[in-house]
């Protein structure tokens, strides 16, 4: 079994006569936005608006990844993350990978354009769109250009946010999450 690969050829079309940037699949139209503009928006805009923007970006990444994966329920971790990370890279939101902490699913985003709540909304929305399941996401850490986002239920995400807010490290929060859940 060969390792899964992401085919990026002609993934984005620049329609210069019409002044539009389009994806290869579908009719999605893109707008190239400077990263500094997004960071400024995330810093000044209300959290709900930032989360809504992030979910919109992630949903597009998830849908295009699901289109590449095909049968998502039978896909392996490698196949799934390969296509999802490929679409995320086309969108310019960093390099994505998956970590498994016990039974918890953690998506690691490096070299991302933005951190904080917007990134957690982008990742959560992308996984939800790719898998077709309703998931919650919470930002665990963002250090040295590497951010970790927990993908879990909304209830578990709320508890982890509380523990981290109370001073518990994200590792202990995940461990406590396993203790309570088992």
């Amino acid at each position, binding site marked *: 079994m060969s390792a899964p690969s992401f085919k990026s050829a002609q993934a984005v079309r620049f329609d210069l006569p019409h002044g539009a940037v389009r994806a290869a699949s579908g009719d999605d139209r893109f707008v190239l936005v400077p990263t500094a503009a997004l960071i400024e928006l995330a810093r000044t805009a209300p959290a709900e608006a930032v989360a809504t923007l992030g979910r919109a970006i992630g949903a597009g990444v998830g849908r295009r990844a699901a289109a590449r994966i095909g049968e998502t329920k*039978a896909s*392996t*971790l490698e196949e799934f993350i390969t296509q999802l990370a490929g679409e995320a890279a086309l969108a310019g939101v960093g390099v994505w990978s998956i970590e498994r902490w016990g*039974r*918890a*699913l953690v998506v690691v985003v490096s070299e991302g354009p933005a951190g904080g709540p917007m990134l957690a909304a982008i990742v959560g929305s992308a996984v939800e769109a790719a898998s077709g399941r309703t998931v919650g996401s919470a930002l665990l850490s963002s250090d040295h250009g590497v951010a970790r986002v927990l*993908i879990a*239920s909304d209830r578990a995400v709320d508890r982890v946010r509380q523990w981290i807010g109370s001073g518990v490290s994200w590792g202990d929060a995940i461990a406590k999450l396993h203790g309570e*859940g088992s």
Partner: protein
Amino acid sequence: MSKSVTVSRLESLLARIRGRAAEPRPAASSAPGVAHAVPAIAPPPAAPPPAAPPPAPAPPVAAPVVARPVQRVEPPPTVIIDQIEEATLPPPPMASDDFAVDVDVHVSTPPPPRMDAVPSSNREPSPSQERLSGAQALSTEPPAVMADVADEGPSLEHGESLADEDALAGEEKPEEAPISSRRPVAPPEERLAELAFGAGEPLPPRHTPPPKSGRLPAPPATEFDGDVTGVRDAVALPTAGADATRPAAQASRPGVLAPQAVRPNLVSEPRVADVIGDAQAFAPSTFFELLDASLAL
């Protein structure tokens, strides 16, 4: 007995003696060192006198040249000779000794001077074997001289005294170890003093054991002065097989530091690590299994 009878007897006796002296002696009977007892020969009377006393044995006559063994002779009978020419008479008996001494001609040992001081009359008659020993030590001399020398021959006592003198002379010399012996000889006190105070240069041991077979011993370690040679921190190059033999070689030489390795005695046991909890048994094969597990938290 008349004189004529006596003279006639003496003449007949003289004739017999001369005749016997002229006869050649058998060689077997003249072996050196062997004494043969000559039986006393009673001369047959020329004319048996009617009232003659029993024939007396002939007086001992020393042979002029031929050596004869010692023979004890019975004391001759007293004979009164008045008108006999002295030239025809046998030699007179030797002093007052009651024995005759014959000397072996092959032995040439000068008589010791000590015997001169002791008069022969004071000496006790020695057994025949002792006299034989003394006779063998005499040298060949004319018969007249031999008789004198025979009286002055060395006795056993003198032989022992000579042996004692030789022994005393030998004791003055340092004891020499026999050639076949490897026993070290203790030096005399003079040598000990020389060795102690440095009067003389010590000599090497006289008896050294033979070299052992096998490998030659290593030469003694020589230390060089760094100021002279200019080599101050020289590191010896390792040689092949030197590491294996170095501890034994260094241990055999005093004054050389040798490492003493102390190694722990570690025994492997089955329970070294204590595992707390269980390893992760969750291994999802698909993404959805992991997603469902994460959503179940």
